[in-house]
């Protein structure tokens, strides 16, 4: 017997771990198994197709995948420069006492629930965006841009905390040597510190991207949830200023209740979940590989 000489605590430890593995296995199995009918029906056009119309059994998630990538890009466009800039400021420039203050603020910012961000988006941000976009004649303030802006604020703490960790992992001697050679502070940071912290910063950006892709509630409340907004040209900025749909906003909507019971429709919804799971799983895996250790705190 494998477990004959094990103490109760060892058995318990095995049980917990097996429970974790079993749950995760079942999680994956449920999404894979349930999405088979959907994928078998749509095949590759599930990803490449841009028409989602369930009454005609057309399930093309292209517009939603594009929507997800768009909001995540807008979010990163805001959060990456600000987050890395702020991380440089706190780790390289601020004295220790003030540094703690900034870090506490950012930690608290990270704790604000996404539904509160969504609320702020509904009551403020979408009106501001509407006014901002008046020259483009928008239908409402519920746009892909609004969701992206909101995401930018939401993933800022992730990028900042992890980039700060990465910067502080660079040995102090490197900075002293660079300064001793006559480089000024900006040059030391850009030429010596940042290149050495590259892996950690990349991991921060990847993890933030994963968060942005998976965020549901805040995006759901401000994106307008319009299906099938496929842009006429991939280089046009127009889709940013219109309502859109992401994979998560679809999965967070009432279509889940409509779809359940119809094998095909439900299969398509689950395929959406599977695509989301694969993207986020890959990104998280890559990010964890890059930092190798620590940083679940971010």
């Amino acid at each position, binding site marked *: 017997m494998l477990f004959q000489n094990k103490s109760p605590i060892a058995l318990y430890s095995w049980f917990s771990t097996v429970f974790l593995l079993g749950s995760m296995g079942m999680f994956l199995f449920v999404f894979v198994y349930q999405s088979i009918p959907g994928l078998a029906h749509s095949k590759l056009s599930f990803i490449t197709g841009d028409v989602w119309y369930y009454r005609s059994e057309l399930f093309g998630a292209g517009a939603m995948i594009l929507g997800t990538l768009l909001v995540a890009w807008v979010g990163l466009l805001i959060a990456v*420069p600000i987050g890395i800039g702020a991380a440089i400021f706190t780790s390289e420039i601020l004295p220790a006492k003030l540094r703690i203050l900034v870090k506490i603020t950012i*930690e*608290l910012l990270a704790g604000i629930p996404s*539904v509160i961000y969504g609320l702020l988006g509904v009551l403020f941000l979408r009106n501001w965006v509407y006014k901002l976009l008046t020259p483009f004649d928008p239908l409402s303030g519920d746009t892909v841009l609004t969701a992206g802006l909101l995401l930018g604020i939401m993933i800022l703490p992730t990028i900042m905390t992890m980039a700060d960790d990465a910067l502080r992992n660079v040995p102090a001697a490197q900075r002293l040597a660079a300064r001793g050679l006559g480089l000024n502070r*900006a040059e030391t940071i850009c030429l010596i510190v940042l290149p050495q912290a590259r892996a950690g910063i990349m991991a921060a950006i990847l993890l933030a991207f994963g968060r942005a*892709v998976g965020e549901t*509630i805040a995006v759901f409340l401000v994106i307008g949830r319009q299906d099938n907004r496929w842009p006429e040209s991939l280089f046009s900025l127009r889709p940013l200023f219109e309502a859109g749909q992401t994979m998560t906003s679809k999965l967070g909507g009432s279509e889940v209740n409509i779809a359940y019971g119809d094998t095909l429709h439900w299969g398509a919804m689950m395929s959406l979940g599977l695509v989301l799971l694969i993207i986020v*799983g890959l990104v998280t895996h890559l990010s964890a590989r890059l930092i190798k250790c620590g940083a*679940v705190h971010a």
Partner: protein
Amino acid sequence: MRNIMNILFTSFTAFAALVGCGVFIAIFTVIFYRGLPAISFEFLTDQIRVAGASGGIIYNLIGTLILLVSALLVSAPLAIGIALMQTVFLNNGALKKRLELLLYILNGVPSILFGIFGFIVFVKYLGLGKSWLTGGFLLGMMILPTVTIALIERIRSIPKKYLEAATGLGLRKSQIIFSVILPQSMSGLTTGSLLGLARAAGETAPIMYTATIFAGATIPTGIKESPVLALPYHIFVLAQDAFAPAAIQNLWGAALVLILLVFMLSIFVLPLRLKIHEEAHHA
């Protein structure tokens, strides 16, 4: 030229930090300013009335607490077992890394997928309907990585000589666990749990298909078909539907209560959390 670049660069980073802090202060001020007028004894102790336009949030608060307690009861025991497996029972370095990677991946799974998973398995397949237990279980699995990793880090930081002394005394592995490792690492479990609960308190996506309804539930008496009300879901629904000024004011009040709950949970952890981050770089 070099000096100008230096100044420009420094001011850009200062500006970025200012934006980060400014956003937080702005958000916090707005919620406080708008939410405070709604808070009253009645608001905190009455049940929801007229679809949120009057009455209070007592059952929402109780529901959220029920979900949090059950999430804690699911995650803490499992976290202890998994953390011991990772630190004590597994000897193979590659397997240790695998287990940790698995926790990171679980940590990254979008919360809406937990909701959908719970909807299929618990609500439909097991026929539980909407139940607080499902919500608590899902939230517990969601915060499991946070709790476990915090515990693992604490166990790793136990001084080697403690373990050597215990081994020298001739204690068995299980005795070392109960007399040295667990007592020495309890702070990791508390830190991780509070951090996780602070996150779970504000989650909407995992519970909206599985555990909560907007109105009409009080304290659950069973498991099957026993939904609860919850603060984040309350805010989520009202954010879409509320137009009456009274409802919007109560909405801000609920937001303030939720954010205070989250901060209360995380404020105890902050000093420890910052210390870990700071110490990690001087080790």
